[in-house]
């Protein structure tokens, strides 16, 4: 009797486990297939977009008038961005595939800046036309290689999940067809070297310029430690560690970490070797309830910058995040605001301590500029503004435009409906360089649900 019941229960148990196992197995497979499908979609989209890209670049070669050329180039730009996003969805991060992605971005940059240019006034130069031809040929090569991979994938039923596994295990020799195929694509691209995009093409990737305006002598580790001590405000009872930058950095710098022996508070900062300029400084501690206003904190920030020898600064933006105030300063020269020279300062609102400071942008771009007089008058360029915008404030300023050049602009602050816009209009050409919708406060969602 008992045996019978026991057998019955066990049998039920076995059947239950089997059923559960089967369910799990099916679910796992469903998820795997789903993931696989996402990879497949990204991959096939990518090859399709490269196909289209090649076609489009081909057709632009035959065009001459602005009317057709500009939209076609804009199309190229859109395609590169889509292809780029699809590359990003493939599990290729640990595979050196950067060259291909950079190549895509370069085509994108090139097509964008030629698309937005007034091609009637400034048609494609011969070098630009040549580089377009070269791009056509190179994108053709990539297209060929990718098609080979695609063919292999379809024919042999290759799965991206296997690529992931192969990359993850890393021990097994990587003889995966997909990986090999992509390595070939990468090799093809690296052999292009730097395509000559013409003299006007300053690659956007060179944005992180290498602190070329820095002046002064190289400082020693000891000097660096002293400067850091001054910034931290911890006094003399401190532990200081100074390390030099690794080989991969474009600029020589010292990293200093400094700890107050008493309070165990820590501060970190980087200083350029040349001249000993502070790139950034940061002190971490818990900040209590705000006691001082944002305005007062701003004054502290201004005092701090003055004490450390920064001159001609305008407070550009002040924002309170809980119990911290973050301030952005920009320089001004003859009443012209220089936006690329930005400095950030973070102030604790409980006692007004400076908790952070970042001058990376400032150090990279600050130099004595020769700001030309604007050739257009304010009233002339004002006509370029959308008449629906109500202008509230105006000034002259220097910004870096989409083409990565510094340009002198009339800056207008205006409102349209409930939104505020910042509009920059080139003071020489009257071109609308930039229109920004300024951020409104974001509602807190937590209490809604």
């Amino acid at each position, binding site marked *: 009797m008992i045996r019978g019941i026991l057998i019955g229960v066990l049998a039920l148990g076995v059947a239950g486990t089997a059923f559960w196992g089967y369910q799990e197995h099916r679910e796992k497979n469903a998820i795997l297939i789903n993931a696989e499908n996402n990879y497949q979609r990204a991959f096939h989209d990518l090859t399709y977009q490269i196909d289209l890209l090649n076609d489009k670049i081909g057709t632009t070669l035959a065009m001459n008038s602005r009317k057709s050329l500009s939209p076609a180039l804009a199309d190229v730009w859109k395609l590169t961005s889509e292809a780029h996003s699809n590359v990003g969805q493939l*599990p*290729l991060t*640990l595979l050196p595939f950067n060259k291909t992605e950079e190549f895509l971005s370069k085509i994108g940059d090139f097509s964008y800046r030629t698309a937005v240019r007034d091609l009637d006034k400034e048609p494609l130069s011969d070098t630009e036309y040549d580089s377009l031809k070269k791009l056509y040929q190179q994108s053709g090569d990539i297209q060929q290689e990718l098609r080979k991979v695609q063919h292999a994938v379809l024919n042999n039923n290759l799965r991206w999940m296997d690529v992931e596994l192969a990359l993850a295990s890393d021990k097994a020799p990587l003889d995966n067809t997909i990986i090999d195929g992509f390595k070939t694509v990468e090799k093809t691209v690296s052999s292009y070297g730097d395509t000559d995009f013409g003299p006007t093409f300053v690659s956007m990737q060179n944005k992180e310029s290498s602190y070329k305006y820095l002046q002064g002598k190289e400082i020693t580790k000891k000097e660096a430690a002293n400067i850091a001590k001054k910034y931290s405000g911890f006094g003399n009872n401190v532990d200081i560690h100074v390390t030099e930058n690794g080989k991969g*950095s474009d*600029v020589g710098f010292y990293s200093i970490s400094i700890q107050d022996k008493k309070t165990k508070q820590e501060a970190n900062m980087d200083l350029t070797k040349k001249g000993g300029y502070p790139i950034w400084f940061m002190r971490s501690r818990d900040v209590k309830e705000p006691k001082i206003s944002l*305005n007062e904190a701003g004054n502290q920030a201004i005092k701090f910058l003055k004490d450390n020898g920064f001159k001609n600064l305008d407070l550009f933006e002040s924002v309170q995040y809980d119990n911290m105030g973050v301030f952005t300063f920009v320089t001004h020269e003859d009443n012209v605001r220089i936006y690329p020279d930005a400095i950030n300062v*973070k102030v604790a609102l409980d006692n007004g301590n400076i908790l952070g400071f970042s001058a990376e942008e400032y150090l990279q771009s600050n130099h004595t500029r020769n700001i030309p007089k604007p050739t257009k008058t304010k009233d002339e360029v004002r006509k370029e503004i959308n008449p629906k915008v109500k202008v509230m404030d105006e000034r002259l300023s220097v910004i870096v435009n989409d083409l990565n050049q510094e340009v002198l602009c009339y800056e207008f602050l205006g*409102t349209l409906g409930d939104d505020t816009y910042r509009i920059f209009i080139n003071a020489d050409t009257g071109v609308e360089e930039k229109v920004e919708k300024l951020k409104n406060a*974001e509602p807190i969602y937590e209490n809604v649900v």
Partner: protein
Amino acid sequence: MKKNIVIAKVIFVMTICMICIPLSQNEGKVKAFSSQVIQQGAVGDDVIELQSRLKFLGFYHGKIDGVFGWGTYWALRNFQYEFGLPIDGLAGNDTKNKLVKATKNYKANTSSQNQQASKPSSQSQPKKAATNVPSGFSQNDIRLMANAVHGESRGEPYIGQVAVAAVILNRVESASFPNTVSGVIFEPRAFTAVADGQIWLTPNEQSKKAVLDAINGWDPTGGSIYYFNPDTATSGWIWSRPQVKRIGKHIFCK
């Protein structure tokens, strides 16, 4: 009959209470501004007061959310213009005094509204309903990044967490990576925390602060786009990247 009288009395007392309590609450809450100068970007009770009073006068049209944004800024400037004050967009002493004087009826008005309004609670205590976010990012972006930072680098020093957030942002900027925060974070095999699900741990306040710092312009990594833990790195390739510096357990490279 007697019961009815008792009930009527109770109801009478209760109505009086209902009318008086909100009134007296408002009476007790009479607070003008604190002595602080209020400027753009500020949050808190002073800003709520400022917005309510400007709205009362018809200068401000937005929501009373306690965040001194552009809408409040223009409203304040218009007020300063109309009342012959220097137009600086700062609510200093003169401006606040003028504003309080110009809105003498302001308190009475809200309390009378209270009596009539069907939902007095929302009127009597305006709550901070919004928050500052760095331009180009939403609270959700910040949360997602905080998740990634927490999953990747909890246990690292604060500066190391800012560094991880900075790497995510550098990748968004970089030509070799996707152009969105989510694209970078969810790029397959990019972050171990995403692959093994640690990204879905609830991030602590510190990782959120680290993300904010990184977004606000602090980059301790000198523009790095990779980092790895030399003790656990499985890929040999990562060692071939040019290294910039070491923070905590991670080596950052380009």
